[in-house]
């Protein structure tokens, strides 16, 4: 028998704490596959966010640091400046990156720090129980937008992939999803590209994942996938916003 697909080597053999059907696990695996395929396990260092993915350090056979909420890009900068030849990546949620950590991600991006950022947009704060995120859709009900996000009060959802593409220091910015095999395979390419750019010393790369949160959206897993396909993708079009050429 030939192995077609096997659990990535860089992943620990461990049960994750994520809710049933949560896409965080898929994004993890895509990162792992990229690391495996690029053969960089021994020189990759990860920065965990504060969010549901805070436990990511538990699932990878990699050195990891758990940075304060939102500050992963600054922490990553500190590591990368000491070890320019290591591969350093942050994995951040939309509360972490787009709310409290806005200044840090923008400045790291603008500096063109040679980093890779995996950004999980699940339109809410998963870990703390489903509050509004900067990426929450208009009209979406969350525990802190109980009447639905109102453009007058809270403004429009943030488009991170587009925003990032404005900065000259950013060499790659893409938005992907993981709701079916096709999108997952496309995501995989994006993640790999984002790591390869770093290996080639090109600068800052970011991949935004449209991700689900069945638990806090109050949906079944299937419903959550439909929400991504029908609602999120409309607000947040998939695609490569920068660095897709070649």
């Amino acid at each position: 028998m030939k192995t077609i697909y096997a659990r990535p080597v860089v992943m620990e053999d461990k049960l994750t704490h994520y809710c049933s059907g949560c896409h965080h696990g898929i994004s993890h695996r895509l990162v792992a596959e990229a690391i495996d395929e690029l053969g960089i396990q021994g020189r990759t260092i990860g920065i965990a966010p504060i969010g549901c993915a805070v436990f990511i350090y538990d699932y990878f056979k990699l050195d990891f640091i758990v940075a304060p909420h939102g500050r992963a890009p600054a922490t990553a900068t500190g590591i990368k400046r000491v070890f320019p030849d290591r591969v350093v990546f942050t994995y951040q949620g939309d509360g972490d990156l787009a709310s409290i950590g806005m200044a840090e991600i923008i400045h790291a991006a603008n500096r063109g720090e040679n980093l890779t950022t995996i950004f999980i947009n699940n339109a809410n704060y998963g870990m703390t129980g489903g509050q509004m995120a900067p990426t929450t859709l208009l009209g979406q009900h969350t525990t802190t937008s109980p009447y639905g996000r109102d453009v007058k009060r809270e403004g429009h959802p943030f488009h991170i992939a587009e925003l990032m593409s404005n900065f000259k220091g950013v060499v790659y910015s893409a938005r992907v999803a993981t709701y079916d095999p096709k999108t997952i395979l496309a995501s995989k390419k994006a993640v790999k590209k984002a790591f390869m750019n770093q290996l080639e010393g090109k600068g800052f790369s970011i991949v935004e994942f449209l991700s689900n949160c069945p638990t806090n959206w109050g949906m079944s897993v299937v419903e959550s996938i439909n929400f991504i396909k029908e609602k999120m993708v409309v607000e947040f079009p998939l695609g490569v916003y920068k660095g897709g050429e070649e």
Partner: protein
Amino acid sequence: MSERILFKGVEAVAEAAIKAGCRYFFGYPITPQNETPEYMSKRLPQVGGVFLQGESETASINMVMGASAAGARVMTTTSSPGFSLMVEGISYLSGMELPCVIANIMRGGPGLGNIAPAQSDYFQATKGGGHGDYRNIVFGPSTVKELVDLTVLAFDLADKYRNPVVLLADGALGQMMEPVVLPEEVKLENLPNKPWALTGALGREKNLAMAFEMVPEKLEEINWRLQKKYDQIIKEEVRWEEYYTDDAEYIIVAFGTSGRITKSAVKALREEKVPVGLVRPITLWPFPYGILVELVPQVEAFLVVEMSAGQMVEDVRLAVGDRRPVFFYGRPGGMVPTPKDIVQKVKETMSLLDF
């Protein structure tokens, strides 16, 4: 002996850090310590290091966290409001047991306050500006020479105890120039080995840097382990200077700039045969309670002099209890007491006691 050089405090601290093997500096401008990042921006590239101006104090302390986790000797400097923005990070660094050196060149507060010298961040530095049960070693240098020496020591102790070390100075010390003899530059290859550093998990188990443990029983254990370390520091690292204490019947306690100004006051008083002495804490945490306790029997009263509305005075009271009166003379808001002011306060309080 090396050459004596005239150095501004805030530049001396930078050069001393470089001598101690510090090659990474992340910081954000704020008066009265701008010359430190400025100096570093010039010097670090010359020695193969990296200077990066963080986009804020918040970012800077988190960059420090990254560099420290990577095993480097790293430093940041700031002044009062900037330190406030760092306390979340400092709590993390302490919990993660990551070594680093942070200088707070204090200025008048609260809020924006002003840029004049002050000592009103004593509580913040010694009792935990951040959340949770953590402690930082806090030095209170009083001369540029001492600032240099303590900077080097700060890096060593930070590594030894895997703990942040705070240099708590003020704008006066920062802005003054004094001759110093710089220490020999350490060879980077002689710096302590850091097997815990995040270097990429090549051929070893992975290393994790985090201040995080969901299970209370385990987090409690971590806390007790930290406390044990703090107890060891208390046992081994308390430092202070005594000045005319031998036969003193009246002790002034003051640190940093007010400490050295008090020295002049003590000298003047001694010339008048007034039996005063000075205890100048060098480590503000761990605080030198012991020497004060020892002095109680021989002393009629204590006076604490601070460039604040009264913070260290609490620690002196903790040591002295009600056994002796503890007077206080403070100048908050950026004022610097003169030796004359202090002499007068001593005489005033002595007269209260029928000295």
